[in-house]
């Protein structure tokens, strides 16, 4: 029975199937919001309101011819999409959905799981870099170096911003942090700066406008994924979708009070809160223009990092006052 439960957990909810369905739904939501903000229709044709468009895109890509460049490092080139998808899907398991109860620690909810989650969310960036580098295309290589350059900008502010609510909650477990803030909703207010910083850093991590520099199509064509096609590209796109779900889930769990109550209630809260976060991300995407990679690093260190430090200070002072 325990084995069956684990398999269900891995494959159905909140494992691969759920992540696939919800990831494609989030892509649809993002595309629709972005399109409506730009006075366009967005997807309308496939499924009701175009709901199935990302799924259709995925299966269409799966059926396309898969080309590997002659000069590319073939094993690495082939392995990267699979590893990338596996990494973000594993990160998805750490969402406190199935097991939202702070008292029941276990294999997927333990002290320090927030660190593991942040680590797993860093890996796709490295995978994108390796993907760009191994395809030996000049545009991919420029994209790859841009991925890494950006990583040095946003990663530190993101970590500081995400970890400061954890310091206030005095726990490294996502489920416990959520429960702490659900019990004291007013304490969410001091974390507003951190919320904004984390939102912008997640936008950079997901390589969306204004941080879509590694695959800026008017500059370097497809960027990191220029040489990828067919199944491999489909995997990478699914990886990005799931990364969107996991990162917005992380922000919702840390800054918006997490997901509590029974599993069904937790699920409903998860949907509402992640969609709210994705709405904000789409808003940023529609309202800004792409910036240069040197501007990203300067912005991250001159604005985001000091703000994150300020957030940390606020949290430490409040923690002192509460005692």
């Amino acid at each position, binding site marked *: 029975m325990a084995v069956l439960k684990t398999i269900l957990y891995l494959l159905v909810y909140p494992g691969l199937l759920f992540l696939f369905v919800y990831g494609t739904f989030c892509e649809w939501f993002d595309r629709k919001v972005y399109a409506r903000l*730009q006075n366009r229709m967005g997807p309308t044709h496939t499924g009701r309101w175009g709901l199935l468009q990302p799924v259709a895109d995925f299966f269409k890509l799966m059926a396309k011819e898969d080309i590997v460049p002659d000069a590319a490092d073939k094993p690495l080139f082939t392995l990267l999409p699979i590893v990338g998808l596996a990494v973000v899907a594993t990160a998805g398991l750490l969402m406190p959905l199935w097991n939202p109860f702070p008292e029941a620690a276990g294999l997927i909810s333990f002290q320090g799981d927030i660190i593991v989650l942040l680590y797993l969310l860093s890996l796709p960036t490295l995978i994108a870099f390796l993907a760009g580098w191994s395809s030996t295309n000049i545009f991919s290589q420029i994209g790859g170096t841009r991925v890494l350059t950006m990583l040095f900008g946003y990663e530190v502010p993101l970590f500081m911003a995400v970890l400061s609510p954890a310091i206030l909650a005095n726990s490294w477990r996502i489920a416990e942090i959520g429960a702490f803030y659900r019990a004291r909703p007013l304490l969410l207010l001091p974390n507003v700066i951190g919320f904004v910083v984390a939102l912008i850093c997640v936008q950079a991590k997901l390589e969306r406008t204004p941080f879509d520099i590694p695959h800026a199509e008017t500059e370097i064509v497809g960027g990191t994924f220029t040489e990828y096609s067919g199944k491999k590209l489909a995997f990478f796109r699914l990886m990005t979708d799931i990364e969107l779900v996991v990162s917005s889930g992380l922000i919702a769990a840390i800054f918006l009070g997490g997901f509590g109550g029974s599993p069904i209630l937790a699920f409903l809260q998860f949907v509402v809160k992640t969609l709210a976060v994705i709405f904000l991300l789409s808003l940023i995407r*529609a309202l*800004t223009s792409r910036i240069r990679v040197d501007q990203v690093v300067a912005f991250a260190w001159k604005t985001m990092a000091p703000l994150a430090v300020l957030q940390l200070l606020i949290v430490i002072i409040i923690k002192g006052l509460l005692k």
Partner: protein
Amino acid sequence: MKFNIPIGPQHPALKEPISLRMTVEGEVIRDADLRLGYNHRGMEKLAEEKNWTQNIYLVERICGICSHSHATCYVQGVEKLMEIEPPKRGLYIRYLVSELERVHSHLLWLGVAGHEAGFDSFFMYTWRDREVVMDLLEMISGNRVHYAMNTLGGVRRDLDEIQIKKILDGLVVLRQRTEYYFKIGASEPTFVGRLAGVGYLSKEKAIALCACGPTARASGITADVRKDDPQAVYDEVPFDVCTADSCDVLGRTVVRIKELMESYKICEFLLRNLPAGDIAVKAPKKAKPNEVVSRYEAPRGENIHYIRSNGTERPERLKVRAPTLANYPATIEMLKNGFIADIPLIFAAIDPCICCAERTVELVNARSGEETVVRFGDLRKLAGERFAKSPVKRNAVWPF
């Protein structure tokens, strides 16, 4: 480490084929090279085979955006050769269409600039509002792209009261929208951050490299054919030449938005003061042997047509110098020491119309680098031989 990146002939930033070869060091461009000739259509030669009237429709097809500019420039010259004077009403309508075309071209450019800078919302908004002026042009001429309004000695279609009212209403909408874009272009921090200081071209360099149009005006040069050498109606119309002194892509954006506002002013003046009378006079079939240079301020800069007649129904020579060609040397200067990320912006900022500027083609042997002159028949024979010798290509395999 220096390496070359090829932008084009096929690249998402380019709407038409051209080859930009960049030598870059890290993210910084050290050298740039421009190769033309991918879109040569032999229009000048073709013009010698057609008569004066047929050529109006040929030169109109030099460009898909400033189609009216080339046709007007040509018609102006031929009218001078034939010594005919179009009626006032015809001229007013001709230059009204010119200004509306400038509006649609600049709105299109704003969208393209937004897209190249990764600001797709701006792109969608400007192109939505461009539909307003496209609809007006369609109402006036019956066409959205090649208006075919010009004829030798005037224009082909008249305006009535209802149309005039509709155009004036449309201009009100466009003016409001343009003010909004001016606000966005000058205040949205990420957008301004991308444009300011990019593609610097000093006033001295702009003069030395013969830049023209908004590119020159953004470097502080007050050069506008409409003011310097007013054709037909422009000496009667009150308007200002818009300049900026920031010498960068932001300046070029500001100049274009200001020019939009001036164009609305000119359109309103032309419509309010539209004289009564005929719209065209009959033109003769032949022109006396003579030559003429016709200048016209196209949306992208100064357009020059040189026309020589030999007393027959056909021109002996028609030479077209599109504004884009004049701006290429300045583009190379602007690209140097810029970032890779700025290539599309700098290149788009001259508003390139690549096929307008394709006047010649050079045949270079790819292996030896030898340049040759080949007759068209020989070229065709060569292609046939090469095809016959080449191995059969493997068909793409469907994955299932």
